[in-house]
C-alpha cells in the first residue's frame, strides 16, 4: 500500500485483515472488561477507547497516503461491493443515527419512526435511479455529472453550491457530536473537545483522500456496529433470556404501555400520528410523510453517499454494493427501536420516582456535559417526577449503559462507536466538499492546466480549511444534531435530485431547464428554512401563517422538490432539445458495458 496504488493482493486479503482487526477489537474490549473488574479506573477506560480507536484510524489513514489522482478521488475504483457497502454504512450512519436517533425514538415514539424509514428507504431510490448510471459515467464528483450532462460550468457551479450548503450543514452536526463524545469521555471542555475531534477527522482523510477514507470507514463500521449491538443484546438477554432484541422488545413495549398508565402519560409510545395530548393530529400526520419523503430523496441526493458508488470496479458491482450498503445500515436501524424501548423502560422503572439524593453517578457525569441532562426537584418532595427529569435526545444512547447499570466498559465501547460514526461521516462529507472545491471549482473552472501534484495540494489545503471552519461553527452550538442533519437532507434533495434523475431518465431535459430547476427548487427550500428558523416574525407577517401547511422546516424540500421537477420539465419543453451527441451520451450512460460517448460539447 505504501506505493500509493492499491495492489491486488491487498484486495484479496481484505477478509483476513478486517477479520483480524474485528477480533482484535473484541479482544481489546474483553481485556478492558477484565481490568475494570480488578479496579481499572473509569477515566482510563474512556481514554483507552477514544485514543486507541482514533489511533487505529490514523494508522490506516497514514498507510493509505497517495499522490495518484484516481486513488485520491475514487480509491482507485477497486473497492469490492461488500466492503464498499460497509464503508457506505459508516459514511452514512452519522452522529445522528448513532447518537441521536434512538434518543429521538425515546422521546417521540412512533412519530420519530419517520427517521428510521426515511434514512433506509432512500437506498432503493439510489439503487434503481442513480448509482449504476453515475458509476458508468465514471468521473470523480457529482457536479462533474451535472457539468457534462448540462454542458458547462453554470450547472457545475450550481451543483457545487448545493453540495456545499448541504454537506457543510451536515458536517457541523457531526463535529458537534464528536464534541459531545470527546468532552464526556476525555473530561475536557466542549470547545476544546471539538478541535481534538477535528484532528481525528483530518488525520484519516488528509493524506489519502478517498482511498484512506474508504479503508478507515470499513474499520469504523466494524467498531460502530459492535458498539451499537452489544448493549442492546446484553439487555435483551438479561431481561428476556433471548439475545435477539429485535424480537424481545415487544415485551418491553408492553411493559412501557402499562407504566405509561401508572405514570399518567397521555401520549403512548406506539401510537401513530398523535400530538402531546395523545390525540390524532393532522399536523403530525402530514409532517410524518413530509419527513419520510425528504429524508429518502435526500439520501439519493447527498454527494458524499453517491460518490461512494464511483469507487466500485464496475456498474454491476455498484448495484450490488447498494444492496450491501442498506443491509449493513439495516443492522443498526432495525435495532434502534429496541434500544429506545429498553432505555425508556429503564428510566420509567428505575429512575422516575426514586430519591433524588440517591441517584447514581451517571446523572452527575452527564449533567456536566453542556446542559444535556437536567434534574430539578420542582415540587420539593425529594423524589424524581417524570416532569423533573429532562434528558436531551443526543445523550440517550451514550448514557443508556450507565442508566441500565452495565459495566463501564460498555459505556466506553458505545463512546467509541459514536465517535466512529461521527468521524466516518465527517470524513466522507469533508472529502465531498474539498473534492468539489478542488476538482470542480479549482481544476475545471479556474485552472484547467494545473498539474496533478498541484491539484492534490489544493485539495488538501481546502480540506483543512473547511474542517476548521466547520469546527468553529459547531463550537457555537447552532442546533440539535438531528435537526441540522435533516436540514442537510432537505437542501440536497431540493437542489440535486431533480437534475440528477431527469438527466438520466429523461433525455429531453435541457441545460437551461435543469439549471433553472435547481435554482428555484433549492432557492425555495433555503428561503423556507432560513425564514422559519431565523425570522419567524417576518415570515408570519408576509404569509399570515407560522408554517406553510404546518410543515416543519426539517422537511423544507417538500416545497423545493416539486418546484425543481416542475420548472425543469416546463423550461426543458420550452427550449431546444439537447443535441444528438448529448442524447448518445445519455444512451451510453444507460447501458453497463462499452465506452461512455463523450460528445463534442460534453468533452471539455
Amino acid at each position, binding site marked *: 500500500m505504501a506505493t500509493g496504488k492499491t495492489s491486488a493482493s491487498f484486495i484479496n486479503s481484505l477478509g483476513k485483515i478486517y477479520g483480524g482487526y474485528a477480533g482484535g477489537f473484541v479482544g481489546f474490549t474483553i481485556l478492558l472488561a477484565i481490568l475494570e473488574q480488578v479496579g481499572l479506573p473509569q477515566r482510563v477506560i474512556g481514554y483507552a477507547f477514544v485514543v486507541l480507536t482514533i489511533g487505529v484510524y490514523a494508522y490506516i489513514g497514514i498507510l493509505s497516503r497517495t499522490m495518484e489522482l484516481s486513488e485520491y478521488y475514487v480509491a482507485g475504483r477497486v473497492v469490492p461491493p461488500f466492503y464498499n457497502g460497509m464503508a457506505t454504512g459508516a459514511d452514512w450512519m452519522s452522529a445522528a443515527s448513532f447518537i441521536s436517533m434512538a434518543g429521538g425514538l425515546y422521546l417521540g415514539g412512533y412519530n420519530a419512526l419517520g427517521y428510521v*424509514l426515511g434514512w433506509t*428507504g432512500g437506498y432503493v431510490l439510489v439503487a434503481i435511479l442513480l448509482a449504476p448510471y453515475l458509476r458508468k459515467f465514471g468521473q470523480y464528483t457529482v457536479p462533474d455529472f451535472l457539468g457534462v450532462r448540462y454542458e458547462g460550468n453554470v450547472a457545475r457551479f450550481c451543483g457545487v453550491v448545493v453540495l456545499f450548503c448541504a454537506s457543510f450543514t451536515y458536517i457541523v452536526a457531526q463535529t458537534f457530536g464528536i464534541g459531545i463524545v470527546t468532552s464526556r469521555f476525555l473530561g475536557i471542555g466542549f470547545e476544546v473537545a471539538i478541535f481534538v475531534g477535528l484532528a481525528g477527522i483530518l488525520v484519516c482523510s488528509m493524506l489519502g483522500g478517498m482511498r484512506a477514507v474508504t479503508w478507515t470507514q470499513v474499520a469504523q463500521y466494524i467498531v460502530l456496529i459492535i458498539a451499537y449491538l452489544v448493549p442492546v443484546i446484553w439487555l435483551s438477554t438479561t431481561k428476556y433470556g433471548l439475545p435477539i432484541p429485535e424480537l424481545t422488545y415487544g415485551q418491553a413495549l408492553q411493559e412501557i404501555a402499562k407504566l405509561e398508565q401508572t405514570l399518567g402519560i397521555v401520549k403512548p409510545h406506539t401510537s401513530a400520528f398523535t400530538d402531546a395530548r395523545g390525540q390524532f393530529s393532522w399536523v403530525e400526520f402530514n409532517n410524518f410523510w413530509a419527513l419520510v419523503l425528504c429524508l429518502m430523496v435526500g439520501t439519493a441526493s447527498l454527494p458524499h453517499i453517491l460518490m461512494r458508488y464511483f469507487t466500485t470496479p*464496475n456498474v454491476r458491482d455498484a448495484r450490488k454494493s447498494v444492496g450491501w450498503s442498506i443491509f449493513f445500515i439495516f443492522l443498526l436501524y432495525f435495532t434502534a427501536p429496541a434500544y429506545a424501548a429498553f432505555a425508556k423502560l429503564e428510566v420509567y422503572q428505575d429512575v422516575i420516582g426514586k430519591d433524588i439524593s440517591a441517584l447514581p453517578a451517571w446523572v452527575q457525569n452527564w449533567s456536566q456535559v453542556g446542559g444535556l441532562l437536567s434534574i430539578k426537584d420542582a415540587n420539593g418532595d425529594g423524589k424524581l417526577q417524570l416532569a423533573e427529569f429532562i434528558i436531551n435526545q443526543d445523550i440517550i444512547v451514550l448514557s443508556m449503559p450507565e442508566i441500565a447499570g452495565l459495566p463501564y466498559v460498555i459505556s466506553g465501547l458505545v463512546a467509541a462507536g459514536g465517535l466512529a460514526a461521527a468521524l466516518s461521516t465527517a470524513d466522507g462529507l469533508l472529502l465531498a466538499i474539498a473534492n468539489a472545491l478542488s476538482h470542480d471549482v479549482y481544476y475545471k473552472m479556474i485552472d484547467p492546466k494545473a498539474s496533478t501534484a498541484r491539484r492534490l495540494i489544493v485539495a488538501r489545503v481546502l480540506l483543512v480549511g473547511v474542517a476548521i471552519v466547520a469546527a468553529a461553527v459547531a463550537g457555537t452550538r447552532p442546533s440539535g444534531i438531528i435537526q441540522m442533519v435533516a436540514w442537510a437532507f432537505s437542501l440536497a434533495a431540493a437542489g440535486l435530485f431533480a437534475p440528477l434523475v431527469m438527466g438520466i431518465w429523461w433525455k429531453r431535459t435541457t441545460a437551461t431547464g435543469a439549471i433553472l430547476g435547481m435554482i428555484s427548487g433549492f432557492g425555495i427550500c433555503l428561503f423556507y428554512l432560513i425564514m422559519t428558523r431565523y425570522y419567524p416574525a417576518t415570515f408570519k407577517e408576509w404569509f399570515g401563517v407560522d408554517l406553510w401547511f404546518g410543515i416543519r422546516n426539517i422537511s423544507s424540500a417538500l416545497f423545493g422538490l416539486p418546484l425543481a421537477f416542475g420548472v425543469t420539465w416546463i423550461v426543458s419543453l420550452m427550449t431546444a432539445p439537447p443535441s444528438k451527441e448529448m442524447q448518445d451520451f445519455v444512451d451510453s450512460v444507460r447501458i453497463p458495458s462499452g465506452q461512455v460517448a463523450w460528445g463534442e460539447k460534453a468533452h471539455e
Partner: protein
Amino acid sequence: MATLTPEKQNAYWRKTSRLMWTILFLWFVFSFGIHFFAPALNKIVIAGFPLGFYMAAQGSLIAFVVLCFWNSSAQNKIDEEFGVAEE
C-alpha cells in the same frame, strides 16, 4: 458506445424502466402506503408489537433490503439477455 442497435437500445431501456417502475411502486407501498393504516394496524398486537408500529420500525426496512438485492439480480438478468453485461 456498445454495439446495440437503436431498436435494441430502446427495448433494453423499456425493460429496465419497467423494472424501475415496479420497484418504485413497491418502494412507495412500503414507504408510505401501509403506514397510512398505522393507527388501525396498531390494534393488532403480535408478540407484544402493535403491528403498525412494527411495520414502520422493522417490517418496511426488511422490504427495502430485499428490494435492493432483487433489483441488482433482476437488472443483471436484463443485462445478460441483451449482452451488455460487463466482461
